[in-house]
C-alpha cells in the first residue's frame, strides 16, 4: 500500500488536521516509509487469528441502571467558547 498526495490530504481532512500544502510532499514521503515498514506484517498469515482488542482476558465491566449523574450544566458548559447559559453555541452547521 502506498499513499499519494490526494490520500494524505483526505486523511488530514478526516482527522481535522490542517496540512500546509508545502508540507504535503515531505509528509507523503515520510508516511510512505512508515507504511513500508508496517507492510512487513502482511507477510504473516493472520486469516485464522481473531483481532486482539485487549490483552486482558476478561469481560466488560458493567453498572446498574441508576441515575447518578447529570444536572451539572454549569460545569458542562464552563469551557465552551460561546456560552448561552443553556446551550453549546457553535458556528452555523448547515446540512
Amino acid at each position, binding site marked *: 500500500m502506498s499513499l499519494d498526495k490526494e490520500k494524505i490530504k*483526505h486523511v488530514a481532512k*478526516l482527522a*481535522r488536521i490542517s496540512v500546509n500544502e508545502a508540507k504535503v510532499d515531505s509528509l507523503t514521503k515520510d508516511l510512505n516509509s512508515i507504511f513500508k515498514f508496517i507492510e512487513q506484517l502482511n507477510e504473516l498469515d493472520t486469516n485464522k487469528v481473531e*483481532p486482539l*482488542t*485487549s490483552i*486482558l482476558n*476478561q*469481560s*466488560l*465491566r*458493567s*453498572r*446498574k*441502571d*441508576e*441515575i*447518578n*449523574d*447529570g*444536572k*451539572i*450544566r454549569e*460545569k*458542562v*458548559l464552563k469551557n465552551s467558547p*460561546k456560552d*448561552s447559559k*443553556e*446551550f*453549546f*453555541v*457553535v*458556528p*452555523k*452547521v*448547515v*446540512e
Partner: protein
Amino acid sequence: MVVMKSEKFDYFINGDKGKYEVVIGLEVHAQVLSNSKLFSGSPTKFGAEPNEHVSLIDSAFPGMLPVINEECVKQAVRTGLGLNAKINNYSVFDRKNYFYADLPQGYQISQYKNPIVGEGKVLLDMPYGSKEVGIERLHLEQDAGKSIHDMDPSNTYVDLNRSGIALMEIVSKPDLRSPDEVNAYIKKLRSIMRYLGTCDGNMQEGSLRADVNVSVRKVGVKEFGTRCEIKNVNSIKFMQMAIEYEASRQVELLESGKEIDQETRLFDTKKNETRSMRSKEDAHDYRYFPDPDLLPLKLDQKLVDDLKKSLPELPDKKKERFVKDYGLNAYEANVLVSEKEISDYYEEVAKLSDNKLAATWMMGDLFAMLNDKGLNISNSPISAKDFAELVQAIKSGEISGRIAKEVFEIMIESGDNPKKIIETKGLKQQSDPKELEKMINEILAKNKDKVDQYKSGKEKLFGFFVGQVMKSSGGKANPQLTNEILKKLLKG
C-alpha cells in the same frame, strides 16, 4: 405512472418500458427504555431543560471512561428474543468516526462487525396473507445530541440531553415491497417492543425513527437495483411518502436511460420530495475500529435463558390464543392484540361479559369515541369493568343495542356505571310479553286504518308498527319480542 393498490399484492410502478417492483429495507433506530444512559449515569427522560441531562462522559471531557449499563444490554437481548433472533454471546463495541457538532466525542460508540443480536424474523399480517420479513441484525449504539439551527442566524445551538442515550439499530433484510408493508412492519416492531417494554415507540418524541433504503427493479429480475438511503424519517406517513416519491424518481431515471447514483438522500416533508444530502466526494468514511475503552461484551448463556423465560406473551402468540380461546376471527384478534393495553382491556371485559360482543363493541363504539377525543385505551374515560357491565346488559337482554348506545354516551359524560344509568333513567328493556302485548294492542287499536291496509297486502306497514311500539316505549321494547308479538297479533 400509476400506482395501484388492491386486496391482492399489487404495488408496482408501471413505466413505459415495463413494470417495476420496489425493494425496501429499513434501519430502525429505537430508543432503549432505561433510567440512565448507555455509558453514563445521566437520566434519559424526555423534555428536560437543555443540557441538564448531561454528564462529563456525555459531553466527552478528556479522561472520562464509559461504563456500560447492564439494563440496556438486557433490553437489547429481550428485543432480540422477541424478534426470534440469534443472540450473540460475544459482541464488540466499535468507534464510528465522523465530525459533527452534536457528537462531542468525534465518534459514536456502536457495534460493527460483531453485533449483540444476529438474524431473526418478523411476521406481518397483510390483506393478501402472512408475510415474513427477515431481520439482519440488531446492535447497540449511542444516540447523538440535538442541533438547533433556527435560534440564531449565524450559530447552531447544541443540546446534549439525548447524547449517549442507548439506541437499538434494527436492520431488516431488503424484504419489504410496498409502503403498506413498511407501515405493517414498523407497527409490528413497535408493538413487539412495547409488549417487551424495551422501547416506548413514541415517534413524536423521536424514540423510533428510521433510515429507509429504496431501490427498484423490473418485475422478474433477480438482481437488486442501485439503492438510495433516505435518512432519519420520523413518521410512518413520511416514510411512505418518501418511498413513493423515491421509487418514482428512480423509475423515471431508468426509463430515460440514466443511472442511479448510490447516495444518501433527505426527505423534505414540506415539498414532499427527496434530495441528495451529500455528494460522493463527501461520502462518510467512518473508519470503524474496536473501542479501546471497552472490552468485548460476553453474555452468559444463563442470562439469555433467564431473560427468555421471563418474556411476556407476545402479539403473535396472543393472537393465536384470542382466536382459539375467545372465538374471535383473525381480523378482530389482530386489532385487539396490536397494543398490550388494548389486549388487557379486552380480556378484562370479555371475562366479565361476552367474548364476541365485547370485541364488537370495543372495536366499534369504544374505539370511535377514543379516536374522536384523541385518547387511547390507557386513559379511556370508561373503565374495563364498566364497559363489561354495559356489554353484559346487552347480552342478557336487559337493554337493546340502540339503548346501549345511549347509555354509552351518558357513561362518557357522567362517568356513572351502566347499572346506575339504566335504573335512574328507566332504560331497562321491556321484555315482559304480557305488558308488551298490552301496549301493542293499544297501538293497533289506535291505527285501525293501517291495520286494515296491512291485512289487505300492504306489508311494508310492518315497519310503521314497529316504529310506533318503539316510540311509545321510548325505545325500550325488546325488538325481537316486539316483532314476534306484532306478527302474531296482525295475523289474528
